[in-house]
């Protein structure tokens, strides 16, 4: 039994290939039935990169995230995370949009953060002291330890977002995909979350953040990725957010937030 578990864990948590990019996409195409969602996407990220993905609704941001997380398999092209297929890793965390979470679900904050540990545990094993310590440490890092016993439905928007990031930390994620983490938050909570992103960089966590606010993307991220089914630009905000490229993404007039 013990042997079986060790093998299983090794299988799901592949060792990272040295000298390989955190994330490398080459010629990725994703197609649902006859509809093309993403096409010809190629780019690479280095450890600690903080990238904002922007593009109009339906640009394929969620599809891109799901492909990187290994939930969708590209129809064409390759995605590698630390030199291996995404499906081989448990170090990729997907932080969902708040509107997609069932906040009436009967769990509290500590329960949700503990969910991040389940992948490393293996079937039929219960969380132990080590897992509880990690969960507590993650809640402390996000300053939500006083909310541990709180029902998730009773949290503010900023607290909900912190909880989701704490769960990703408990998962020991090295690559975090965040879907619209700033949407619907007040200015102070947005500032908090942006500070947390800085803290994550300090820990060597690479973050990819979907945003719809171009201004926030330009001011707070060192790299932006402009997407509309195709990759229209990737690099520093002032290089990517040119009138011409924005027009290509959103349609004229340029600079309008779609």
């Amino acid at each position: 039994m013990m042997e079986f578990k060790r093998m299983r864990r090794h299988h799901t948590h592949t060792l990272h290939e040295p000298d390989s990019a955190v994330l490398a996409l080459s010629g990725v195409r994703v197609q649902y039935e006859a509809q093309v969602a993403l096409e010809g996407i190629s780019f690479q990220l280095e450890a600690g990169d903080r990238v904002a993905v922007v593009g109009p609704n339906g640009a394929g941001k969620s599809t891109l995230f799901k492909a990187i997380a290994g939930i969708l398999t590209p129809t064409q092209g390759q995605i590698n995370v630390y030199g291996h297929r995404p499906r081989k890793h448990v170090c990729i965390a997907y932080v969902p949009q708040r509107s997609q979470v069932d906040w009436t679900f009967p769990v509290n904050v500590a329960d949700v953060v503990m969910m991040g540990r389940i992948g490393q545990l293996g079937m039929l094993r219960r969380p132990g002291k080590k897992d509880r310590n990690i969960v507590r440490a993650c809640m402390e890092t996000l300053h939500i330890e006083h909310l541990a016993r709180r029902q998730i439905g009773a949290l503010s928007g900023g607290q909900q977002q912190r909880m989701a990031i704490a769960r990703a930390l408990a998962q020991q994620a090295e690559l975090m995909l965040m879907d619209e983490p700033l949407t619907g938050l007040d200015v102070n909570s947005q500032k908090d979350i942006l500070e947390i992103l800085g803290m994550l960089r300090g820990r060597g966590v690479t973050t990819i953040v979907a945003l719809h606010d171009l201004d926030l993307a330009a001011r707070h991220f060192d790299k932006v990725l402009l997407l509309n089914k195709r990759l229209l630009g990737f690099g520093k905000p002032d290089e990517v957010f040119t009138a011409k490229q924005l027009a290509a993404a959103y349609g004229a007039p340029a600079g309008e937030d779609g």
Partner: protein
Amino acid sequence: MQWLLEPLQFSFMVRALGAAVLVGVVCGVLGVYVVLRGMAFFGSALSHSVLPGIALGYLVSGASRGELFWWGLGTGVLTALGIGAISRGSQVKEDTAIGIVFAGMFALGIAMISTARSYAVDLTNFLFGNVLGVSQANLWLIAAFGGAVLLCIVLFYKEFLVLSFDAILAQTLRLPTRFLDNLMLVMIAVTIIVSLQTVGVALMVAMLVTPAASASLLTRRLPLMMALSALIGALSGVAGLYLSYHLSVASGAAIVLVCTGVFLFVFLFAPGRGRAWVWLRVFRRSSH
């Protein structure tokens, strides 16, 4: 006291009470997942869809109860996995697909049973249950398969928790989501077959959904919700049987009516969250 003890002198009543308690507990616990994952319609459809299997067994083997259990179990598991496969590779919307399969299978079952001579009585038993006819052997089957469902829920507790709360998380944690989804479908199928003799095909969904819904209004902790739901399910089974005995009401209907009554009571008077308190607050505010 006499009211409570009198029915117990009949061994069929004792067996029926045993079955009702077992069914109440299993349905109550699994029902929490059915409610949380919004699978009520699936449960209802699945219970109707096993009718042709039972009908076939009934026509082949006569009305032998022991054999009908296995016919039902086979049909239930196959139909559950079939519906699961349809909803994954769907060109039709999931609820539409389920609706088509379930009504078609149900009609087939009724058509098959209608070819037998004792049509009306037997059909009634299949549709609404006949818990007073539970045999000793049947009770053992209910205990064994009900126990297996409970064991799976305990063994895979954390996996089902993650899968129900956030399916994408379950996938990024690389949990075997396909296996777990199918296991959930099979567990629902087994629970339905186990409960069939107590409440029947048509009332089945009430046992899966109503106690769990009541429990969800009383607590916001999953383990406690399961315990409360099991308690409500078991007590409703016992209370329903006593009512059925003393008032000469059909047993399956009586059990379901008690479940519904408990739900209405909780819906109105649950501490803090009951509708009655909400209305009272609105009334007080407006009368100031």
